[in-house]
């Protein structure tokens, strides 16, 4: 009798435990370790308070490590993660392959900046919700411009930028007129060079996927880049990426720096930047072809097709990308810390527009059109990248070639010829060129 009671009690405890366990859902969220994402982790009490049955398990990684892990998992249908942080490059490719679940339950989708929504969609369906967006612009030293007797235009051309760089360069005092990316990588120097080429009327591929490095537009872009970096750039520029140029600009070694709008908050921080009060912002330059040299990027949240917890995952994404989340961050940490570049309503907020680089960030993002990135027609989408799976490999190799040219190991013509040969081979092997 006693044994039977014990057995029944044990069964009841197991059953109740099972019910309690079934009510709890744990979401595994793979995310990149930038400041906005780290901040989100601190804010999640707000989400779990209204969704007590959902627990959050964070996997925070450096961007390249994250990309590798997430790609491995999703391509092998591993199902390790329920929410992925991915960029504009991966989203349309993975959406097309059916690796992502189309999103539902997003707060006011019409409020998302059109260019960002377009870059995160495939076949008209939104596959990832933007958490944070950025473009690129020119940061410059107003005091050095005044000393050189110049005034920065609101819509500069490459000729104006180069003239300003020449006049600001003062190598005796350690001032370089301009700092640009030189470190090899599709997300490093090619992010900048791709947009610079776009503004010179160049394109990666023609309508039949033939590489275009043998065309005069690419030659003009690369020779201009190499010349201005030789005349006005810092020493060892072929190893400089975002972080290295940031350090140079903050320590007063650069007159101008063309890079991500995310750098805005760093260069105006008086604790970090020597000349924080003298920093101005302007839109990326053009060359008269109707396209400016600015990119468009967004880190976005998506649900992989292998997840067993789609409903809870979409609920979390809905919260993290909502207007409410922006207001929460503003209330706790100020408007300057609200994730930028995703919603039109944020840029209609007069409080947010007081942030010095806010208006220029919006102008830069609006000037970018990932659906029509170049002056001439192209068969691809994406501004600083080409949204095909092969691009990461091709972009990195071409980046290495151009970085070698910047280091003086090969000439501009040799670099362009090598880039053309390599890309043609890769595209032929991949079946794009018949």
């Amino acid at each position, binding site marked *: 009798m006693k044994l039977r009671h014990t057995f029944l009690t044990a069964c009841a405890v197991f059953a109740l435990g099972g019910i309690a366990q079934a009510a709890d859902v744990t979401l*595994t969220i793979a995310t990149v370790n930038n400041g906005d994402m780290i901040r989100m982790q601190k804010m999640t009490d707000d989400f779990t308070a209204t969704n007590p049955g959902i627990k959050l398990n964070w996997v925070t990684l*450096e961007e*390249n490590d994250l990309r590798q892990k997430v790609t491995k998992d999703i391509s092998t249908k591993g199902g390790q993660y329920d929410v992925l942080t991915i960029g504009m490059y991966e989203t349309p490719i993975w959406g097309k392959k059916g690796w992502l679940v189309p999103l539902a339950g997003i707060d006011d989708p019409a409020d998302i900046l059109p260019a960002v929504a377009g870059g995160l969609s495939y076949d008209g369906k939104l596959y990832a919700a933007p958490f944070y967006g950025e473009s690129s612009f020119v940061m410059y030293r107003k005091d050095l411009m005044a000393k050189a007797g110049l005034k920065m235009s609101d819509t500069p051309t490459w000729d104006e930028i180069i003239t300003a760089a020449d006049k600001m360069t003062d190598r005796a005092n350690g001032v370089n007129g301009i700092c640009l990316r030189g470190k090899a990588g599709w997300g490093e120097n090619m992010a900048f060079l791709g947009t610079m080429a776009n503004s010179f009327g160049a394109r990666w591929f023609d309508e039949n996927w033939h590489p275009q490095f043998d065309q005069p537009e690419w030659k003009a872009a690369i020779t201009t880049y190499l010349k201005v970096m030789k005349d006005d750039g810092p020493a060892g520029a072929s190893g400089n*990426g975002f*972080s290295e140029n940031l350090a140079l600009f903050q320590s007063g070694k650069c007159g101008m720096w063309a890079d991500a709008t995310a750098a805005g908050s760093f260069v105006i*921080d008086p604790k*970090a930047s020597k000349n924080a009060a003298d920093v101005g912002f302007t839109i990326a330059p053009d060359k008269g072809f109707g396209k400016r040299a600015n990119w468009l990027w967004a880190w976005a949240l998506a649900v992989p097709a292998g997840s067993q917890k789609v409903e809870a995952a979409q609920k979390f994404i809905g919260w993290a990308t909502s207007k409410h989340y922006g207001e929460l961050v503003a209330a706790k940490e100020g408007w300057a810390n609200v994730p930028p570049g995703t919603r039109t309503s944020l840029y209609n907020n007069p409080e947010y527009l007081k942030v010095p680089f806010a208006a220029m960030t919006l102008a830069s993002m609006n000037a970018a059109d990932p659906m029509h990135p170049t002056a001439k027609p192209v068969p691809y989408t994406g501004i600083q990248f080409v949204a095909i799976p092969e691009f990461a490999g091709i972009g990195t190799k071409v980046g290495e070639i151009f970085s070698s040219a910047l280091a003086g190991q090969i000439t501009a013509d040799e670099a362009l010829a090598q880039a053309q040969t390599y890309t043609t081979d890769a595209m032929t092997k991949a079946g794009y060129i018949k």
Partner: protein
Amino acid sequence: MARRQSPRRTLLITIVAWTIGLLMFFPIFWTAVAAFKSESDAYSLPQTVLSTPWTFENFGIVQDRSDYFRYVFNTTVIVVLSTLLGLMFAIPAAWSMAFAPTAQSRSSLSGRQWLAIIFSGLVICFLGLYFTDWKPSNALVGFALLLIFVVPGSLWAWSQNTSGTLLWMLSTKMMPPAGALIPIYLIFNRNGLVFKDWGWINLSDYNLIDSFWGMVPLMTLLNLPIIIWMLFTYFKEIPVGILEAARMDGASLWNELFRVLTPMALPGIASTCLLNIILAWNEAFWSLNLTNKYAAPLSFFISEYSSPEGQFWAKLSAASIMAIAPILVIGWFSQKQLVRGLTFGAVK
């Protein structure tokens, strides 16, 4: 008789050794200095070393963001268990090779003939597929590949003499780990799915990814060749007569191994353990790829602080110092044993 060196030569060698030592130590010194700077000072150009206002804030931020002690616990579990598991396999293996070596191959087949067997198996399979238009399941393809590659490969390894086996074991360390990443990742992540594919029980929720069940055996297997090699070198130094005397006194194999051989080789085993601990502690490639949180070690912890965009050098330096501090302390206190272990058998 020791060779006498001129004072000038001694001085020169000392200067060169110190220069090389300082150059090798410089990155660690720089990391330690950056860890105590504010983020903006860590970035500022030109760099200052002594005039910087020092701060502990990076360590606080790192601990606040990541639970450092959980990573230390995970690393300790993986390191200790993989070392113990490694010794369990390595001591008998090294004993057999040191005291009962096989002088000749167990098989009369040559390497070429083994390759011919594998190649023939592949050809037969392809011909079968081609002529029958047969579409086998993934599981069947897996079984076929097992029969064609793994079975003859294992038989070949088994048939080798001792020196061949030792070389073969070391050769497994020569392969770039990235080459084996995807197969191992699939085994770890889909081990349950394989059983499901075969129509057996569905174990798809029980993955080896991000678990000690996966990481401990993997770390053991990664370092096993080196442990066996080191123990083999130690055991070779022990006179075989002592073991024979124990045998004559009626010692069983177990007693011979663990009551005679192991106590005599204890210094060597300790050095081997230390080396294995250091290797397992610093392993990053597999840890980064096969863990996420629950079994993530300190190498994973460091990677959370690296970023291509932003200011992170001071925090990354603080995380690095926190990660290497325990192993530096262990290494410092046991350097004599470690050096002895690495140079054992080099001088007779």
